[in-house]
């Protein structure tokens, strides 16, 4: 029962049980042959356990790939996996990874609460951290004004921005009343606020007739749906994810919320896309798949390989968290290798950080880049759904692709100010 981690490690590193800690600073000559140790902080239990599961698959795929093709600058990769829980305990695990296991890099983290707490701690410990997710805008700017060691994922609001843009592009003039049902945490709050801010920016007259904030993990949404139905909105914007989304879909369908021509925008639908069965999910909705759309016809060979590998392992199709995890690993690999090449020898941590700034990589979902201000830029996929496919769940009929430079704030900007002033082409 307790051997899962070990098994995974063996599968990944091929080195079996971790050797005693080898700090890279003390013995550079020896270190050249020792595997690189990468700490992973991923949720395993509770609501977010499902994110961690998918992300870990991305990491595993990346590490298999790396280790079978010569490692990172010649060194194989070995993982130390720890659980992300609440901020208090996760910081303890981070300290363990950094101080005790002496890992070279920490990747993971999906919760904004944890990443907000972790940023300053990582900076203080000079720990190189590349986060998968968990970068909701609130609090980010005061917590980490000048990041040196912490690398963030793309802003969590990107998908809301893109979904809002698509809604405006496709349905402008077709809706006057809007309603929101979004998860009750910073992610949901900001998504709905971003949607409204963009409607204002493009001068779309609208009234919010209902806004619902079910707690994440609410399994009975009948009353929420009843409230939405009573408000008779022309458009419903919902960044629900996890199991909440299929539950909402099924409940809304059962109550007839989808019978009256109401439009639906689900920026985070790609997280539970395979659970949204056709029978209760009509076509013609806006679905966001974030940075990985598994069925993208023009997707890279790498993506197709991964999707197949994932499907064989789980009998399911992956969501974007796998891509985020892969991206984090790819950025670190690219940084190390660039620094290694530049230095002509094994690079120090500061060299790696320098090389990671501005590095471009090919992730599972598509091209991406790590900005100089330590915020990731990736490719986003959204579109309007269709039932015309071989699956029992809807996929995208038309796929819109946007690069994050269109979807997130520039260096040093405030997200909300950026929305007002940004020059985005619809």
């Amino acid at each position: 029962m307790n051997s899962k981690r070990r098994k995974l490690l063996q599968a990944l590193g091929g080195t079996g049980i971790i050797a005693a800690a080898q700090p890279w600073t003390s013995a550079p000559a020896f270190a050249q042959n020792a595997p690189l140790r990468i700490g992973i902080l991923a949720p395993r239990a509770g609501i977010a356990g499902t994110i961690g599961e998918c992300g870990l698959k991305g990491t595993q795929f990346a590490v298999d790939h790396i280790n079978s093709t010569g490692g990172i600058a010649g060194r194989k990769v070995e993982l130390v996996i720890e659980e992300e829980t609440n901020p208090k305990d996760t910081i303890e695990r981070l300290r363990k990874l950094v101080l005790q296991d002496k890992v070279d890099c920490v990747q993971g983290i999906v919760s904004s609460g944890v990443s907000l707490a972790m940023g300053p701690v990582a900076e203080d410990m000079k720990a190189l951290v590349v986060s998968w997710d968990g970068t909701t805008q609130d609090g980010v700017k005061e917590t980490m004004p000048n990041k040196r060691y912490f690398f963030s994922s793309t802003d969590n609001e990107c998908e809301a921005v893109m979904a809002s843009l698509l809604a405006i592009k496709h349905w402008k003039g077709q809706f006057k009343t809007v309603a929101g049902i979004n998860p009750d945490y910073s992610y949901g709050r900001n998504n709905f606020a971003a949607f409204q801010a963009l409607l204002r920016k493009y001068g779309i007259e609208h009234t919010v007739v209902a806004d619902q904030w079910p707690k994440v993990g609410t399994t009975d949404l009948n009353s929420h749906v009843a409230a939405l139905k009573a408000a008779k909105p022309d458009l419903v914007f919902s960044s629900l994810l996890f199991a909440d989304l299929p539950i909402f879909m099924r409940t809304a369908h059962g109550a007839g919320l989808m019978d009256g021509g109401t439009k639906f925008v689900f920026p985070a639908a790609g997280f539970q896309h395979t659970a949204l069965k056709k029978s209760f999910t009509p076509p013609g909705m806006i679905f966001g798949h974030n940075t990985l759309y598994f069925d993208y016809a023009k997707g890279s060979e790498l993506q197709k390989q991964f999707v197949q590998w994932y499907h064989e392992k789980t009998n399911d199709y992956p969501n974007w968290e796998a891509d985020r995890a892969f991206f984090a690993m790819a950025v670190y690999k690219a940084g190390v290798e660039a620094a290694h090449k530049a230095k002509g020898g094994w690079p120090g941590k500061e060299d790696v950080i320098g090389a990671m700034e501005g590095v471009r990589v090919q992730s599972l979902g598509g091209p991406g880049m790590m900005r100089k201000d330590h915020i990731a830029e990736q490719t986003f996929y959204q579109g309007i759904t269709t039932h015309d496919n071989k699956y029992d769940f809807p996929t995208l009929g038309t796929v819109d692709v946007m690069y994050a430079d269109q979807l997130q704030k520039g260096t040093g900007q405030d997200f909300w100010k950026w929305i007002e002033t940004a020059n985005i082409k619809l």
Partner: protein
Amino acid sequence: MTAFLDVVIGGVFHAAVLFLVAAGLQLVFGVQKIVNLACGSFYALGAYFGISAVSWCLARGMPPAYFLPVLIVAGILVGLIGPFIEALLLTVYQRDEAFQLLLTFALVLMFQDVLRFFWGADPQQLGDLVMTYGRVKVGALQVPTYNLLVIAASVVIAAGLGAFLQKTRFGRILRATAENREMSLALGVNVRWVYASVFTLGTMLGTVGGALVVPTAAASLDMPVELVVEAFAVVVIGGLGSMRGALAGALVVGLLRAAAISWYSELEMLAIYLVVIGVLVLRPGGLFGRPLE
């Protein structure tokens, strides 16, 4: 009007499920004086097991329409872990309540991982099975037939429980044991057996509740800890140990939640806690409980 009915039906549906879990809590507390924090874990177990059972049957060619009885049977079957857990509780019957509470808290911790070990971290669902029974449409009002069936099942179980406790010999023994354990012992009642059966029955109410609700919802790992709080609100409002209290409390919580969501959604859970505290201030024993101390 339609909107109002929607809210009421939504609230009653929520109440129906809460009632089953709360009734389990009440039964166990009433007879054994143990507050079971793990009631939410049983609920989740019922939900997960229900999904597995239905999927297993469907894969073997069962017509989808039979899924409701399968769920009920699955709930009852998995409720059979009751006696084993009761055997564990047996060690602390004579101890301070703190230990009983802690023991069930330990079960909460263990079940989180047991569920994850068997079913993984991804939420489990039954797809669109719930729509097998279609919808009931009256004017603009639309309700999935299954939701009404769950309400009906809960009412039947409530009535059955009531009749069982009032009319049958075993029910009378239960009530007598609840009143006075020593007296029952003196009258030759096999208290060991009574406790084991009551705890199993309480467990089954939870597991059947979880199995019944899962087609409309999903089984997820945080189900147990979230539900406990609501179930506690129900029993405190209704009065600890009272079956009538479980019914009234479930309706109060279900309808209150539905109303709060419709009119001022920020108040959802807050409103429930405020009512709990209000009840405790004004009627310390709850609506149907006895005054304490």
